[in-house]
């Protein structure tokens, strides 16, 4: 009731609302989306150009430093974006906290694991074994 305990709109953006999150989730979803525009276009164009070639040509392409950097950026932005997006889907349709909270945790852990696997594999190819 007292005026000093009421949150302003600005307070909510700073993470003082009930979810304690502010605009971080919303903002990072947009930032990763922006990053994914050139990265997915580059990846799609590259796949069209290289996927049907020999294995050796593909590996040569993957070992190109530009490819390695772009691939790591793609994996980072993609799995970050995926974790945020799937989290919203779960939060919209699952209203039982006993399911929702573990489901969101699993989504985040799986996204991190996939990102780690993809990035390590990209670097293994880049540095050649």
């Amino acid at each position, binding site marked *: 009731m007292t005026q000093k305990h009421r949150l302003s709109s600005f307070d909510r953006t700073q993470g003082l609302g009930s979810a304690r999150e502010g605009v971080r989730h919303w903002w990072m979803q947009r930032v990763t989306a922006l990053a994914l525009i050139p990265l997915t*276009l580059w990846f*799609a164009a590259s796949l069209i150009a290289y996927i049907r070639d020999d294995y050796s040509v593909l590996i040569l392409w993957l070992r190109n430093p530009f490819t390695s950097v772009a691939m790591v950026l793609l*994996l980072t932005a993609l799995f970050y974006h*995926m974790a945020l997006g*799937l989290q919203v*889907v779960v939060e919209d349709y699952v209203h039982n906290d006993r399911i929702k909270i573990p489901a969101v945790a699993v989504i985040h852990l799986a996204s991190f694991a996939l990102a780690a*696997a993809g990035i390590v594999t*990209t670097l293994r*190819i880049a540095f050649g074994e």
Partner: protein
Amino acid sequence: MAGNDRPLSPDLQIYRPQLTSVLSITHRLTGIALSVGSLLLVGWLIAAAAGPSAYATLHGFLASWLGLLLLLGWTFSLFFHLCNGIRHLFWDAGYGFDLRTIYASGWAVVVISIGLTLVAWIISFGMRGPHP
């Protein structure tokens, strides 16, 4: 607010689908499809790192009709989610909210994402012959 037995809005049983709502749910569905497709991306990298025989096995699966069907679905999902995502970013920036623009951009997303899917597959197949 007397009486809780009234139907909740929107009642999907009687609610006529509109371009806006159909594209909205398609954005979500393609996002989920692309999440599944991201498993293939990581699997594809792992197969490439594992060596020519592992890569050939994955390639063989992708060249099957089921593999090609999945690839076609993911190609469309990628281009749709990309185009409609850009539409969302314009909305986030405060542009394109009037009804006429919303429908025009919606139809543009449909046409461009189907067009890009066709172009990608025609280039992949038409210029290089059948899948190895």
